[in-house]
């Protein structure tokens, strides 16, 4: 009986949280117009969300591409198919690893920082202070950060994939002797602009949306104590990772299902 009761309670609590999160999202999106009035708020957040994640994304992308080049070469050379290394590296980066790994890094690097920042603002009653001055904290604080995440994510994923493909080329044709022309021409013959690249960009926009939503909501919803903020930050990283990987499976099944 206790188990059934516990299940009922936890579903009531998570249902309630889902409702609050949706309400929060609607409020956030309805504040978009006021950000267009003050674009400086947006560039400031693009700086802290996008520019600050640039280095980690570039370096990780380079290494992921180099590892793909090495591992792909070892497997493909067994079949005498080293020339298709470019296809393997580009397809796995553009379709999966680019959007997913950059979204996971984004959630760890920028999402946790957003949660901690907003949680601390709430704990030190800065958000209530703004309300006292008749400034809507959602419009002033939340929406610019949300938009910055939404804009940064596809750009970061594009940088990640591009740098990774170059990394794969450095290892593949620079160190292991795959023909450089074959690397690029096989890639161009197999990668489709709409099926692969546009779908990858759509994935990264969805991930950017979800990761920023989770990070901002967890911060806004945090219990205003130092322990509450620390828990909210942990939840952001864990929940974002779960959601990104789960959504990636669904999106892949929808986008690449008919191949």
């Amino acid at each position, binding site marked *: 009986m206790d188990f059934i009761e516990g299940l009922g309670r936890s579903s009531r609590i998570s249902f309630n949280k889902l409702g609050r999160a949706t309400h929060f999202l609607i409020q956030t999106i309805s504040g978009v117009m006021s950000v267009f009035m003050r674009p400086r708020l947006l560039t400031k957040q693009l*700086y802290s969300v996008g520019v600050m994640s640039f280095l980690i994304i570039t370096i990780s992308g380079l290494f992921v591409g180099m590892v793909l080049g090495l591992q792909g070469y070892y497997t493909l050379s067994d079949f005498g198919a080293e020339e298709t290394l470019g296809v393997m590296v580009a397809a796995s980066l*553009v379709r999966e690893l680019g959007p997913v790994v950059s979204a996971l890094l984004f959630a760890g690097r920028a999402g946790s920082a957003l949660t901690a920042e907003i949680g601390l603002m709430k704990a030190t009653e800065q958000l209530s202070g703004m309300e006292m001055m008749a400034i809507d904290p959602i419009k002033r604080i939340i929406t610019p950060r949300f938009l910055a995440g939404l804009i940064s994510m596809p*750009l970061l994923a594009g940088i990640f*994939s591009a740098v990774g493909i170059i990394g794969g080329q450095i290892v593949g044709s620079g160190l292991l002797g795959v023909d450089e022309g074959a690397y690029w021409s096989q*890639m*161009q013959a197999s990668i489709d602009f709409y099926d*692969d690249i546009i779908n990858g*960009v759509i994935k990264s926009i969805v991930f950017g949306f979800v990761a920023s939503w989770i990070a901002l909501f967890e911060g806004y919803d945090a219990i205003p104590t130092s322990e509450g903020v620390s828990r909210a930050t942990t939840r952001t990283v864990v929940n974002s990772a779960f959601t990104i990987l789960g959504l990636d499976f669904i999106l892949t099944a929808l986008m690449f299902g008919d191949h």
Partner: protein
Amino acid sequence: MQHTRNQDTLVGLFVASGIAGLFFLAMHVSNLSSFSDEDSYTVTAKFENSGGLKVKSPVSAAGVKIGKVTSISFDPKTYKSVVQLSINSKYNTLPDDTTASVFTAGLLGEQYVNLEPGGSETYLKKGGEIEITQSAIILEKAIGQFLFKSAAEEKK
């Protein structure tokens, strides 16, 4: 003021490099730059059997890719496979007695349409049909025939 200007510069650099990355993916990694539909013409070829040919399979002549397969359908009247080939308009001097055959690149590679030009003076036109075709070689069929033949020889 100096601080905000620095920030603006860095944000600008970030956005520019993001767009450059996406542009690189579009132009250098994908097939967007190689063929667009505008500068190509379509011809039809009917095969007895088009084998494992797929939409987007390459069309090549003398080993060089000159186009791609745009559609494959079954004709219920002649029981043939109707394959639409989109060929780059640069190569508009193919004779109208060109032979189209379905080949396999290597033993396990993908299938493609090979065009072998004939000797006619008139060229293939837009919407024209390649009349001389050669079907795909179905490996199972060939092995089956070979086994059947060697079994028959042993009986003698």
